[in-house]
C-alpha cells in the first residue's frame, strides 16, 4: 500500500516536470489591436498556444536588461523594434536563432542573428477628409507647408522618422535620405525644416492619440502608425485618408530572451514567423508582412481582412505595396542605433527651445 502511494506520488511529480502538451512561455508585445492580431494569428493557431501568457510593455530594453542582469527572466519572447533588436543581440540579452528557413524570403535582410521576422509598420501622415473640403494634401511637402494648408500638425515626441520626412519634404530623394543624414549639414537641414512647423505642432506619444487629435479637430493632419489609421478606417468606419508619401517603414521582430524558456520560445517563434502566420496576421491588422511569400498568400486570398458583413481588400492599407514602397523610406536601424541618442538629445533641445 505504502509503495503504491509512493509510486503515485512520484508519478505525479514527474508528470509535472516531463513535457506537457501546453507551453509555458510569456509573450510580451505592445498591446491593443496589434497584440490581438498576434493572438489570433499565431498564438491561437499554435498547438501549445493555450500555455502562452500575453503581457504588454511600452518598448525599450530596460526591463529586459534588468531581468537578464538579475538572473530572473520572466519574459520569454518579446516583440521589439529593430534598433533594440541590434543592441539587445550585441549585449547578449537575446538568444541566437536559426534563420535558414526565412532568410531568403525576406523583403529586407534581418537586422541581427537573434530575430525572426514579424511585420513592417510605418509612420505615415493622414487627415480627416472632412477637414479639407477643397484642395487635399497630397505629399509630405504639403504636411510641412502651413501656408498652403493652415492648421496644427500632430507629430510624435521622438526624432525617428521625423528627420527622414523633413528631408524628403525639403527636396531630398527618398532613396538618398540616409546619405544626407550621414553628414552634420544634413541633420541641420532636417532641423531647419522642422523649424518651419514648430509653432504649429501638437506632440503625441501614445499610438491612439493622433487618431483622437485628428477626429476631434485638434489638428488638421497628423503622423501616425499606419496600422492604427487602417484599424480606424476598417473597423470604426472613420473618414481618414493616408498621405502615402515619405512613409517611413520600420521593421518589427520577435526575439527570445536569454535565460528564459528558450526551447519553447524558439519553437513558438518558428511558428509565429512562418509565411502562413505572417499572412494570417494581416486578416486582423493592416501591417505589412516581412516575408515575400506571405504577400503572395494575401494577394491570392483577397478580400483578406476579416470583417462582419463581408471581408475587405487589405492591400490598399498596407505599407509594403509597390505603389507605397516607391515613395517610401525604409528606416535604417543601424543608423539609429549609432546616432539615436545624440539626435534624440538634439531633438529634445529643439522641442524645449
Amino acid at each position, binding site marked *: 500500500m505504502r509503495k503504491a502511494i509512493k509510486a503515485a506520488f512520484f508519478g505525479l511529480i514527474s508528470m509535472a516536470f516531463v513535457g506537457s502538451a501546453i507551453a509555458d512561455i510569456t509573450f510580451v508585445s505592445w498591446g491593443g489591436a496589434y497584440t490581438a492580431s498576434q493572438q489570433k494569428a499565431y498564438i491561437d493557431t499554435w498547438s501549445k498556444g493555450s500555455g502562452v501568457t500575453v503581457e504588454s510593455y*511600452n*518598448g*525599450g*530594453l*530596460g*526591463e529586459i*536588461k534588468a531581468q537578464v542582469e538579475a538572473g530572473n527572466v520572466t519574459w520569454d519572447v518579446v516583440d521589439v523594434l529593430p534598433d*533594440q533588436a541590434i*543592441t539587445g*543581440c*550585441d*549585449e*547578449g540579452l537575446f538568444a541566437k536563432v536559426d534563420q535558414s528557413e526565412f532568410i531568403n524570403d525576406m523583403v529586407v535582410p534581418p537586422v541581427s542573428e537573434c530575430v525572426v521576422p514579424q511585420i513592417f509598420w510605418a509612420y505615415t501622415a493622414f487627415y480627416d477628409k472632412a477637414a479639407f473640403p477643397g484642395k487635399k494634401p497630397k505629399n509630405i511637402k504639403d504636411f510641412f507647408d502651413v501656408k498652403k494648408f493652415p492648421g496644427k500638425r500632430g507629430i510624435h515626441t521622438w526624432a525617428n522618422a521625423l528627420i527622414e520626412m523633413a528631408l524628403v519634404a525639403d527636396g531630398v530623394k527618398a532613396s538618398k535620405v540616409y546619405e544626407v543624414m550621414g553628414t552634420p549639414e544634413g541633420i541641420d537641414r532636417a*532641423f531647419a525644416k522642422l523649424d518651419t512647423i514648430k509653432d504649429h*505642432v*501638437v*506632440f503625441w*506619444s*501614445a499610438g491612439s492619440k493622433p487618431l483622437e487629435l485628428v477626429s*476631434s*479637430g*485638434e489638428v488638421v493632419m497628423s503622423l501616425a502608425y499606419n496600422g492604427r489609421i487602417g484599424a480606424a478606417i476598417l473597423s470604426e468606419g472613420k473618414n481618414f485618408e493616408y498621405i502615402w508619401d515619405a512613409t517611413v517603414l520600420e521593421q518589427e521582430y520577435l526575439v527570445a530572451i536569454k535565460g528564459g524558456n528558450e526551447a519553447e520560445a524558439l519553437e513558438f517563434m518558428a511558428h509565429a514567423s512562418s509565411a502562413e502566420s505572417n499572412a494570417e496576421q494581416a486578416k486582423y491588422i493592416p501591417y505589412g508582412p516581412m516575408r515575400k511569400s506571405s504577400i503572395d498568400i494575401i494577394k491570392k486570398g483577397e478580400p483578406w481582412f476579416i470583417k462582419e458583413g463581408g471581408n475587405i481588400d487589405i492591400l490598399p492599407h498596407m505599407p509594403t505595396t509597390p505603389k507605397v514602397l516607391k515613395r517610401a523610406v525604409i528606416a535604417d536601424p*543601424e543608423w539609429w*542605433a*549609432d*546616432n*539615436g*541618442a*545624440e539626435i*534624440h*538629445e*538634439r531633438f*529634445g*533641445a*529643439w*522641442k*524645449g527651445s
Partner: protein
Amino acid sequence: MSQTQSSTGPILTTDGIPLKVSLKKAERINKIRAFLLVSPLLIFILVTFLVPIGDMLARSIDDRQINTVFPKTFEVYKKWDRKGLPSEEVYKTMFFELKNSEGYSVGKASTRMNYSKSGWKSLLKKSKRKFKKIEEGPYKEQMIAIDKKWADPEYWLALGQMVDPTTMGYYLNAVDLKYDSSKNIVQQKENRRIYNKTWIKTFKVSILVTLFCLLLGYPISYLLATLPMKYSNLLMICVLLPFWTSLLVRTVAWMVMLQQKGVLNNLLVMSNLIADENRFQLMYNQTAVVIVMTQILLPFMVLPLYSVMKTISPTYMRAALNLGASPMHAFYKIYMPNSVPGVSAGCLLVFIIAIGYYITPELVGGKDGQMVGNWIAYHLKTTLNWGLCAALGAILLAMMTVLYWAYNKIVGIENIKLG
C-alpha cells in the same frame, strides 16, 4: 565573617553568579530578541533601499566596460600625443583585441563608446565581422580600407575620455558638460545642451506646484478642520475620492478638459468670452503640467495640513479674539504659527514627489513640459545609458538631501508633523 564578605564583594544571585553579570546576560537576550524582531525590517530596507541606491551610485561613476575589453589598446593609447592619427601600434593592438574578443563584451563596450562619439557602435560591429579576413599587417591601412571612420581622429580622440576605470563623465553629461580628448572639462555642443534647461524647468514646475498646492490646500484644510463633522466628512470624501482614482484617469480627464477643442475652451467660445480662433493653448505645455500636477498632488498637501490643524485647539483663537485681536490679526499671530508644522510637512512632501514626476509631464507636457524624470526614463529604456540615468538620479537625491539639510537648519526637522 560571611556578613563582611557580602558587603564588600560583588552581590551574588542564588546560583552564585554575580548579579551584574546575570543582569547583563538577561539584558543581552532581550537585546538580541529586540534585534531579531527588527531584523526583517532592517534586511528589507537594506535589500530594497540601500543596496539599489548604492548600486546606482556605483554605476554613475563606473567606466570599466571598455577597459576590460581593450586593456592593451589603452596602454599604448596613453602614449599617443593626441595629434593626427595614432601610430600603427595602436591600430594593431586594437585590431587584435577586437578580433580575438569573445562573447558580448564588445557589444557592451561599443554601446559605451557610442555615448562618447556616435558611430562607434556600427564601426566595431562591422570591423569585427571583416577583421576575420585580415591575416597580416600593416593593419592601419587595411582597417581604414574597411571603414573610413578609422581614419577619423574624432573617434580616436573620443577614446581619451574613457582611459580611467572610473569617470565623472556621466555627471558632466547630466549638467551639459563633457570631457574633451585630454580629459579637460568643456561645455557640451550647443544644440545638445538640454539638461541644465531641464533641471531649471523641473525646479520651476515643482516650486510652482508646491506653491499652488499650498494656496489651494490651506483653505480646504482649514474648512475640513473647523466645519462640523457632517459637512467635513463630505468634504473629506471630495478630497479623497480623486486621491483614490487612478493617476492616468485623472490625467486623461484633464486632457479632455483643457485641450483646444476641449470642455473649457468650448464653454468659453460658446459663452462668447473668446473668439473661436483665439482658443487658449492650455494643453501640451508647461501650464498643463502645473495645472494637472497641482490637482494630482493636492491631497498630499491637504492631508498633513488637516491632521495638524485638527490638533489646534479652537480655544486659542477664541482667547485671542477675546483679548481684542482682530480676526485677521488673530489668524496671523495664533493660527498660522500653529499650522506651520503641517505646512512644512505638506510642502516637503509635495515638492519631493513633484521633482521626480514622470508620467504626467510625459502625457500633457508636450514640447516644453518634459522634466528630468522623462529623460531618466528615456535613457533607462531606449539608449540603455544607465550610467547617465544613475547620475541624474544621484543629483536628484543629492538635491533632496541638501534641501532637507537646509530645511532642518531653518525650520528644524522636529517641527514637521503629519498628525
